[in-house]
């Protein structure tokens, strides 16, 4: 049995720059029991089996509870009602079938390939514009100057959030993304902040949805707010708000990591940066390998609804389970030389977008944005070098990515 404190070490920010040696030790057991009772799923085969197991539930978030405000009316009536609504109408990432399937159906009706592909030219233009602004710079912070603003603008435009409101989402998104981090999720102070943030963003969304109903245009929110699915019917308001918030956050926090991790990796293996510059056609393969090698989301949590036997381990009913996707991506039983970044790999069946029914809805958009971004960075940044290696990381162990990525450059072409 591997050391039962390894996953605690994974969550420790000290290991954020390189958690992979910890994953290798965790993989000694396909399902590694930790001393807090969590079962960490580590190998590609075990992940593959469990991601398709209907006994693992995504409804593992603690119930929402507003902190006492001192106002008796709010504390006894208003907030408990809000809590109940919130717990019952979580976004689909925290829902199981059949509810999940209905919500996802609504989303997929709007998040279409046609709509994603229509963003192509717009993404290229945004990329070009962000780089043009820094033409003369000798140093940039890739996160603040590029990786963050790009996906934020894209998802806001696709959803139909007015550009002047984009800035407000920055803080909201960063705060709410902590719901995916096991420690932050249990932390009382953080939970209170999440509740307050949720109230704010929900109020904003409610108004925006009303506006979309009055004046529907060709964007995802208008589609969700006015659409009617022959099978799933019409989306309820609370589910609609939760879904809109989810799409915004998912669009904010993950693609940022994909682009930043991508550039970080390319600067660590400059021969591939050179190749990408010379041959943009290799971008799709390179991005798939990135999703394996440095995925934007390292793990997701689940709860076992029944006892599940896996090889030598039995996950008991009710146990928390961590699907450590980033470890499966580095499993030597599945990939030859898994710790080598190799875009020429024949076989890249990664868990970079998760798997099964919760497979990333935005995967095609993420691929499109990452391709546009990395190709442009490779072609236009003149002599880019890492200033900090490793760079400082954001706190999240699941949504793992650099807080800043300072690059020394000799201008932008």
């Amino acid at each position, binding site marked *: 049995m591997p050391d039962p404190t390894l996953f605690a070490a994974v969550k420790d920010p000290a290991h954020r720059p390189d958690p992979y040696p910890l994953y290798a030790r965790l993989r000694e057991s396909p399902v590694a029991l930790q001393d807090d009772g969590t079962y960490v799923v580590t190998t590609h085969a075990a992940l593959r089996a469990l991601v*398709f197991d*209907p*006994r693992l539930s995504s409804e593992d978030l603690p119930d929402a509870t507003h902190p006492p405000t001192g106002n008796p009316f709010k504390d006894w009536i208003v907030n408990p009602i809000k809590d109940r609504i919130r717990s019952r109408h979580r976004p689909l990432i925290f829902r*199981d*079938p*059949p509810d999940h399937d209905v919500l996802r159906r609504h989303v997929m009706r709007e998040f279409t390939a046609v709509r994603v592909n229509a963003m192509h030219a717009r993404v290229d233009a945004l990329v070009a514009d962000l780089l043009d602004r820094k033409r003369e710079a000798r140093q940039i912070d890739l996160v603040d100057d590029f990786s963050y603003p790009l996906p934020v603008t894209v998802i806001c435009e696709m959803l139909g959030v007015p550009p002047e409101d984009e800035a407000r989402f920055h803080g909201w998104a960063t705060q709410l993304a902590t719901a995916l981090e096991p420690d932050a999720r249990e932390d009382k102070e953080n939970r209170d902040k999440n509740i307050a943030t949720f109230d704010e963003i929900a109020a904003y969304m409610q108004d925006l949805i009303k506006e979309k109903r009055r004046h529907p245009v060709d964007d995802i929110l208008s589609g969700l707010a006015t659409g009617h699915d022959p099978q799933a019917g019409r989306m309820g308001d609370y589910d609609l708000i939760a879904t809109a918030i989810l799409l915004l956050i998912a669009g904010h926090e993950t693609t940022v990591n994909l682009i930043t991790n991508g550039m970080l990796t390319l600067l660590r293996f400059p021969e591939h940066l050179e190749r990408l510059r010379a041959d943009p056609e290799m971008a799709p393969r390179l991005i798939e390998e990135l999703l394996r090698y440095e995925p934007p989301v390292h793990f997701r949590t689940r709860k076992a609804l*029944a006892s599940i036997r896996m090889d030598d381990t039995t996950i008991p009913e009710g146990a928390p389970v961590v699907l450590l996707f980033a470890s499966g991506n580095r499993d030597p039983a599945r990939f030859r030389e898994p710790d080598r970044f190799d875009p020429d790999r024949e076989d890249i069946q990664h868990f970079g977008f998760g798997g*099964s*029914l919760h497979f990333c809805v935005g995967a095609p958009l993420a691929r499109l944005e990452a391709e546009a971004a990395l190709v442009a960075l490779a072609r236009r940044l003149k002599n880019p070098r890492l200033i900090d290696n490793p760079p400082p990381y954001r706190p999240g162990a699941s949504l793992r990515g650099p807080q800043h990525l300072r690059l020394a450059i000799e201008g932008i072409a």
Partner: protein
Amino acid sequence: MAEALRAVVVGASLAGLRGAEALRREGHRGPITLVGDEPHRPYDRPPLSKRVLSGEARPEAIDLPGQAGLDLTWRLGAAAVGLDLPARAVALATGERLPFDRLLIATGTRARPWPNPAEAALSGVFTLRNRDDAAALRAALAAKPARVLIIGAGFIGCEAAAACRSIGLSVTLVDPTPTPLASVLGTRIGRVVAEMLRREGVDYRPETRVEALEGDAAGRVRAARLAGGGRLDAPVVVVALGALRNTEWLAGSGVAADAGGVACDGLCRVLDRAGRPVDGVAAAGDVARFPHPLFPDGPVAFEHWGHAVEQAQHAARTLVGPPEDHGAYAAMPAFWSSQFDLNIKSVGLTNGADAVAVTQGSLAERRFVAVYGRAGRTVAAVSFDSARWLPAYAARIAAGDAFPPILGATDQGRVAPMDPGFPQRPARG
């Protein structure tokens, strides 16, 4: 010397092609000759009852992708008519004799014809197994017949009905059993399919037997006469009564082969009439009948796409390597079907099941996983629009878990075992 060994693969469809490729991969260096009775290169059969009939795919555009550079020799349009074991040669209808050191038998099945040959020969009466069958039927459907009568509500009959409806044709589907797919899924789950057929506008008539087909003076089919009276006008008739295994060419060869298939052992080695493996001769795919470790009732033969691929690879390993090295073939049987917008998928074998329970979703929503039990063990799982969950069930079936195997699924209602309602014997039109 290994270099000089000659391999012959009889049957140039999925199992034959994948078997030939696997022979190369496993290190067979000598010539490999593929023998096929049809004139076509290997093609994919599943589209024949779906997109080819609806006109979405042309019959000549469904070739199976093959591996390049394998140096295969083709004998297409040349049926094998005999096997001479002492001389180690296959005789072809063309008179040619192909000597072999290694032989893979993959002759598959053919459509079971309408029992009355004169009626079967009427123009407008079709079976559906080959590319040419599908092309001919497609041409007849494209002429917008007033009605298509389909005899047999198995998978091919149901899929053909769906394809006809998708291009706006009137379809009557008759079958002697109480529900569609009754012999495979049982009548309990079959009822769900019956409801769907009716909702999609198919004139579905269970427990109905066609007694005879009537032709006009020009030899065109005109109508079907039903048992117990009744008559249906039918300018186009599709006979979908299942398949017959192509083993006649092995008669008198000393190989144990009959209507049930070619007898093999777990390593896919073909057995002689005394039950001994014949050196250097293996079989795979629809035609092979073999003992499967999961199914204790005796040898089985599967007419499944994935099985043809996997068993052919297993047989090739047996032919090339020391056969004992890779153990008995034990892949989990699995198949799928698409009808209308519904995806049906199955793992395991429902044969002999005495109970069925819905473990996920609901029959009413037509989106569910139904699990089959036999003497307290889980033997099969069938999904309707829920295929993503089947791997979990396949693992439980392979482990021989108690029935029902999965409790506590996220979308599980009350799990209540029911009688699956298998017909006493598989009745045929």
